[in-house]
């Protein structure tokens, strides 16, 4: 007897349609899964068998051999989301549920040994795949149903295999999707908490307005991390399209909290400096998104930039340039979007005393040179804004609390509107002359020149000016890479 159901395998961020076929035939008893199933997928055998028995259904054992085929057979299948479709196909093949009804549904989910259905990652993507395949309904764990609903498909939330069977037999109506109770996302840190640090605050605002990458350099304990965490809160809110894009990525990574499945806040990812290249840009045999992709449309924060492994840093150059990461494997290529804003911190020297008026740097010239060498010219060139954050004297800490994030965000949003207009903001003659003079006097490369010009446009947009004036250019020049980072 043969039964068939539809599910989807994840390839990168895409869903590929997979048909799960179950066939019962006489012969030596056994249960085989074929079709390039990985380890987790092979182990489905044990979970499916226990699940079916725990749901007080009949395991079609006896003198029959069960073969499950995952087609297309050449596509690698990974993970535990195939448990539910396999169980349903086996049950349909043994006439415990109507085959025709099953074929109208997609399904995805992991089985517990007691028959409960556990959530898996990537349900949003699978649901989108099901909709494209012309299916109206998808069976999935109750926790992931709100996520599936985002794809514009009717999810059938099921808590237990027995519920799924009862529903497919027509004994149970479609359980209603529990809409998240609208609990607001946790509050984001506010810029008003930062006292003093006017230069760095200003740079943060410019970074938000012009989508510039920002490097904060200075001794430890000067509030660099605190500032960086406040960047997502002053960026313009995500558009609907961006929201879905980000949610899809976080769904595949299994990071969506069930209580608010839609990612409405810009992500802030801060990988530890011991992270491998694969952890940062994504990888693995069935490529999985890395931190750079999880930070898509948000902020990738790299604390102690110089401590990161060199290959991991170099791998970031492609996404910084193109906003996309392409990972080539023998089976094909996966493309991950990675349009993030990079914010990094570093010390000015290995011992961390530079920029601290109360400490004396004890670094040897050799150590300083190798410290600078770790930061390649090419990577340093990707930072439009570089701000040295010296240690404040104690009296400065008692400064007035600054503006709150909403005020700054409003300015950022209007500046973005101006910058997004098709005609770029023109540059005045004075500003061009100033830039030429600066290139002669200051250590500024060709790329550095282009960076300064870009930042100057953002300064002008924030000021609401019609053209880039000399004072805008002069301010932009203050955020160039300092000499001690760029030359020996």
């Amino acid at each position: 007897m043969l039964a068939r159901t539809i599910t989807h395998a994840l390839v990168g961020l895409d869903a590929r349609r997979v048909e799960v076929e179950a066939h019962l035939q006489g012969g030596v008893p056994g249960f085989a899964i074929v079709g390039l199933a990985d380890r987790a997928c092979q182990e489905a055998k044990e979970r499916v068998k226990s699940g079916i028995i725990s749901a007080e259904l009949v395991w079609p054992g006896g003198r029959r051999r069960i073969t499950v085929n995952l087609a297309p057979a050449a596509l690698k299948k990974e993970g535990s989301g195939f448990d539910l479709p396999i169980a349903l196909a086996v049950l349909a093949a043994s006439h415990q549920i109507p085959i025709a009804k099953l074929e109208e549904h997609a399904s995805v989910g992991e089985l517990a040994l007691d028959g409960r259905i556990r959530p898996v990652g990537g349900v949003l993507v699978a649901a989108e795949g099901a909709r494209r395949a012309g299916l109206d309904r998808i069976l999935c764990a109750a926790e992931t149903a709100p996520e599936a609903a985002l794809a514009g498909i009717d999810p059938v939330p099921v808590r237990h295999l027995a519920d799924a069977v009862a529903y497919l037999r027509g004994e149970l109506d479609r359980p209603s999707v529990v809409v998240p109770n609208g609990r607001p996302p946790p509050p984001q840190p506010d810029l008003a908490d930062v006292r003093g640090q006017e230069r760095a605050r200003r740079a943060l605002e410019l970074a938000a307005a012009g989508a510039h990458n920002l490097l904060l350099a200075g001794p430890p304990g000067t509030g660099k991390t605190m500032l960086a965490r406040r960047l997502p809160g002053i960026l313009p809110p995500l558009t609907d399209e961006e929201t879905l894009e980000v949610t899809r990525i976080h769904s595949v990574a299994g990071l969506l909290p069930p209580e608010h499945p839609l990612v409405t806040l810009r992500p802030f990812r801060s990988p530890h400096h011991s992270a491998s290249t694969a952890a940062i840009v994504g990888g693995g045999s069935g490529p999985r998104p890395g931190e750079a992709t999880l930070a898509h449309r948000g902020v990738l924060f790299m604390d102690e930039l110089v401590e990161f492994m060199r290959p991991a840093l170099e791998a970031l150059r492609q996404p910084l340039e193109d906003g996309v990461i392409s990972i080539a494997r023998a089976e094909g290529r996966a493309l991950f979007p990675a349009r993030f804003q990079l914010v990094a911190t570093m010390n000015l020297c290995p011992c961390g005393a530079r920029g601290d008026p109360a400490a004396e740097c004890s670094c040897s010239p050799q150590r300083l040179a190798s410290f600078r060498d770790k930061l390649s010219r090419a990577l340093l060139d990707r930072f439009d804004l570089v701000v040295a954050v010296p240690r404040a004297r104690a009296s400065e800490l008692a400064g007035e609390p600054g503006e709150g994030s909403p005020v700054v965000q409003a300015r950022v949003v209007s500046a973005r509107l101006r910058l997004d207009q098709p005609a770029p903001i023109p540059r005045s003659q004075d500003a061009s002359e100033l830039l030429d003079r600066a290139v002669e006097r200051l250590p500024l490369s060709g790329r550095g020149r282009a960076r300064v010009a870009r930042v100057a446009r953002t300064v002008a947009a924030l000021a609401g000016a019609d053209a880039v004036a000399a004072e805008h250019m002069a301010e932009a020049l203050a955020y160039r890479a300092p000499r001690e980072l760029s030359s020996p």
Partner: protein
Amino acid sequence: MSDLALAAFAAESGGHFVRPPSDPRWRAFRRRFDEASFRAGLHERALRWVGRAEPGFPSLLAAIHDPPPGLFLRGNGEAALLSRTAIAVVGARSCSPYGSQVARTCGRELASAGLVVLSGLARGVDGEAHRGALDAGGVTVAVLGCGVDRDYPASHRELAARICESGLVVSEYAPGVEPAPWRFPARNRIIAGLARAVVVVEARERSGALISADFALEQGREVFAVPGEITSSLSAGTNALLGLGAVPYTSTQDVLDALGIERAPAPAPELGEAAARALGALREFAAGPDELQRSTGLEAAVLAAALTELELAGLAVQEGGVYRAAG
């Protein structure tokens, strides 16, 4: 000409001689030394030799009590450059931002006053002094403690090449001599010997720069020391020099006055109001932008523009996020 033979013998035997030794090996060496082919070898490598008995040898250096047999020269500068008024700028290799800034400014200003800036091509103060002179389009001379053909330290290869464009790299050691710690004090006596005055920028208590200062004092040259913070170990040597009677270096004018050199005053650049206010605050003490904002009351954006204006005018420099008044 036995001076060149002596220098070649020192290189071959790994020794250091200012006068012919009473050594049979020297006599043997002298007999087989082929001066013409040695000179041809130098010429081939674009190196030159000025012996101490030759008229081109700098008279100041000839006057010290143990002048070298001669100097090997590399670079496009004339040998006569060595006889021009030169000021040595020396100091610690691992200098502070303050030291590197003072050294650079000092090199730049001395060079633009038309003086030759002399130093040892080492990391830190030496390198900054050379760079400062080059920034000003001036002439600078590096004295090595190894063979004249070596770029030591290797990280200063590019700097050495830039010095050679208009200045000189000189050494009393023939090509091929390896750098060794004991050769550096000997090098310092040449730096002091060539200079009319020595400016010590930063030095720890037992620093090679102090050896240069000692030589300079012995030879009756002026010694300047840059005052530093009393809590900084990098200034212990220079502050001690001041205690011993060195002249405090507070601006290039101090050096020019001591040598009786007139310099046309540079026209004061025109500054915007914000820049003038920021400069006024910076002249009181070096500060980060946030501190300056509180003392000047300027907005962050305006202050950033003002500080760039000062940097471009050469009136302020930034290091590690701290701005200092310069010039």
